[in-house]
């Protein structure tokens, strides 16, 4: 089957949305953006195609006679097992890369033993990350593996380093710090290589087979058949459009690249057709967009000279508090007395955060204040773009954050009166969806094939 794909290369994450020829969403994929944009796009697309095949499995299973609950349970388990196997596969790649690094003769045996112990520990704990109901700080291998690696490396270094003695001149603490630092250094170097190897995501066929084999009860024949059919389906790229902050670096021809403003406008319009104002808070830019009844952008504003108040702000705060990005919102909504924080400068906000913590303020209250600060900044851009009209759609990664959406809803109501505020659970894919829709249009107009050919070096006409 043919598909159209849109890829949104953001500063934090890269998203892909795959559509069928009728424009229905078949799959979505996301990965962390990395230094190698080509790989980020490749991985996001691979993930979206995996998701597409899961959609095909679901369609196959729908014809099998299972109840909906049974189908949901089966698919849920298959996906968890799939993610676990995918994680284990990537862990294998990490192990290989680390082993290559350990060939360096200057590395001491204690460090080699440390790496072996940490990787063994990671393998042993891999299953627990994917049990039913387990919460994960992130869905990206870099974050999951990194967090566990650090924890295990610290434990290992603590146990395998002589305790500091009080004797004068004894520098017993130094090797412990040194062992931990060495373990961390090896990981930092290895993870860059692991995530820049696109094969680390691995292919559907091999992993789904292992996932089926690992299911608690033997997989029913209907599921196996659906998986086989999905795996055997040929997915042909029909048309592709790239967008996002890094779109200049997207590995597509120029004519297949669209501004993220247009993509967000069209994506939001498709998700919520009555949308007139769109706010997207991305990693390093915030966009306030006005669209007409066809999703065509009529006006927009973006931050130009400074990235204060963008999504990265929250990422920085999460790092400062040693929390996962996912954990910030849930904590902030527990606030009873939000702190009043005026600075949207990321660095100043970090300083303010530490100062307030040292004064004994509750972190829930500080976090609520920080979320409000980011939203106030967005309100200024909204005002400059022409205000907030009904309906109002909030997109981007920050739209997943309940504290940010709560603050936004309050401020919009205060400033513009009641507005219908749309937030899709898939809001992070809005830009990629818009790009996929542009790809679909170009496919239908016949330019998609040209675009696909151009990817292989042939000349291409600009998509109108």
């Amino acid at each position: 089957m043919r598909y159209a794909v849109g890829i949104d290369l953001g500063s934090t994450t890269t998203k892909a949305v795959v559509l069928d020829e009728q424009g229905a969403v078949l799959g979505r994929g996301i990965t962390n953006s990395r230094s190698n944009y080509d790989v980020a796009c490749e991985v996001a697309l691979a993930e979206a195609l995996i998701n597409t095949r899961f959609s095909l499995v679901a369609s196959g299973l729908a014809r099998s006679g299972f109840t909906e609950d049974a189908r949901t349970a089966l698919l849920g388990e298959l996906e968890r097992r799939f993610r676990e196997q995918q994680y284990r596969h990537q862990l294998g790649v990490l192990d290989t890369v680390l082993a290559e690094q350990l060939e360096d003769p200057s590395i001491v045996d204690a460090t080699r033993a440390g790496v072996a112990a940490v990787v063994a520990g990671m393998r042993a704990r891999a299953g627990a990350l994917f049990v039913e109901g387990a919460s994960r700080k992130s869905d990206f291998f870099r974050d999951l593996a990194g967090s566990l690696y650090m924890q295990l490396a610290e434990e290992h270094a603590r146990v395998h380093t002589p305790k500091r003695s009080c004797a004068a001149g004894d520098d017993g603490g130094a090797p412990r710090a040194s062992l931990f630092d060495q373990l961390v250094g090896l990981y930092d170097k290895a993870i860059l290589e692991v995530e820049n190897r696109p094969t680390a995501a691995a292919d559907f066929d091999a992993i789904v087979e292992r996932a089926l084999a690992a299911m608690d009860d033997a997989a029913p024949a209907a599921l196996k058949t659906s998986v086989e059919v999905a795996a055997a389906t040929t997915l042909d790229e029909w048309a592709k459009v790239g967008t996002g902050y890094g779109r200049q670096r997207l590995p597509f021809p120029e004519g297949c690249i669209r501004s993220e403003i247009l993509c967000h406008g069209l994506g939001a319009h498709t998700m919520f057709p009555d949308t007139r104002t769109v706010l997207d808070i991305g990693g390093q830019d915030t966009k306030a967009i006005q669209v007409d009844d066809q999703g065509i952008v009529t006006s927009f504003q973006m931050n130009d000279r400074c990235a204060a108040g963008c999504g990265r702000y929250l990422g920085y705060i999460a790092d400062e508090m040693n929390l996962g990005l996912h954990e910030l919102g849930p904590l902030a909504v527990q606030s009873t007395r939000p702190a009043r924080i005026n600075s949207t400068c990321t660095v100043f906000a970090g300083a303010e955060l530490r100062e307030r913590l040292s004064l004994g303020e509750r972190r829930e209250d500080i976090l609520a204040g920080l979320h409000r600060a980011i939203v106030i900044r967005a309100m200024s851009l909204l005002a400059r773009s022409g205000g907030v009209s009904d309906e109002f759609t909030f997109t981007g990664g920050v739209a997943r954050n309940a504290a940010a959406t709560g603050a936004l809803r309050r401020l919009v109501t205060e400033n513009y009166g009641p507005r219908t505020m749309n937030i899709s659970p898939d809001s992070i894919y809005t830009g990629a969806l818009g790009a996929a829709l542009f790809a679909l249009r170009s496919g239908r107009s016949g330019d998609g094939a040209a675009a696909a050919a151009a990817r292989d070096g042939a000349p291409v006409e600009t998509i109108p």
Partner: protein
Amino acid sequence: MSAPSVVPKDASQDRQKRMIAAHFDRLAEVEERGEKAVYTFVPGNLTELLLSFGVAPVLPEINALQSGMRGLSKDYIARAEKDGHSEDVCTYVKCDIGMSRGGNVGPTGKRLPKPDLLLLSYTGCFTFLKWFELLREEYDAPTAMLHVPYQGGGTITDAMRKYVVDQLKSKVIPALERITGRAYDEDLLSEHLARSAKAEDDLVHVLESARHRPSPIDAYFGGVYYIGPIFTAFRGTEDAVDYYAELRAEIDERVRLGLGPVTPDGELEKERYRVVVEGPPNWTSFREFWRMFVDEGAVVVASTYTKVGGVYDNGFRHDPSRPLESLAEYCLGCYTNLDLPTRVDMLSRYVTDYEADGFLINSVKSCNSFSAGQLLILRQVEERTGRPGGFIESDLVDPRYFSAANIKNRLESYFQMIEQKRSRGDAR
């Protein structure tokens, strides 16, 4: 202003380059020759009057923008900040102060003369007052203030004109007489003004050539070169008359041949978008900024920045028969001295008359005389013309405030938005 080296040069560009070089050479020798130097500003400059006294005009704004284009401003600004000038101050001021403190070597590498007089023409930019206060302290030079009343009502009244003429008579002319020891010669002034009017006719002809499709000029990036002589030390000279006559002939030839504008990458072959631009350009990344337009096939068909040193396309000309009155009207009519409704009218008229697809504002936060009210202008021009407005933020000569990736991103989005609107129009 000298043209970037990669731009294919027309004869007029070479001429301008020679004129500028000769001017800076002359400035370097002012003290040796026993001549006098007068520092003044581009908006409201009284070049013909200065020339009639035989003094050399020095324009700190031009030195600053030239320093920006030549990659010198960063260090000058750092120097000024080291001396206590805030980050938010107009970067022209800091660039100039930094240059003065470093020995007052001008953008061409030649030493600039100290001011014998600071002729402070106040035409809507409050920073000018503070700037010359600083220079007065720096050089211990006398200051003559010409207070030009703001056109708050959108028109020039007789009282306003008289107020300026009175100051010319009672403050400016006596100050020039004092430093030169020469008497005011109105006939000589009129001769200069007659030449100004001639050059102004040709400049307007050149700027209005952008009504053609394709436009033979870029009226913003190219426009800053075209306004160079008339906005600076050459208004009222034979050099300026010759330059504009030559330029006019060149542009007429481009129109005849149906050619687009000359850009840093050669001739623009396909005009895809016609836009009007409000606000000064960024000078530190001038070519890169221009190229962002060229890459999209965008041509600026009219701009307000090219009116800061005088608005001529509304019919105003220096008038040798009313020398001081016409100098007063010139000062009162400078773009920085116009109120917001007049600016909205002007931009709306440009969008319509030049058949622009839209208009863009390059907002410079540290330039309050331009940026205050720009969002209001944006909304009103959009409403009035129905064409989309775009908003970019950068700076004059502080390279730290030009974020190329973001600006390019914004411009691409803007032009794609125009494209999308066009296709909707076609579909309907």
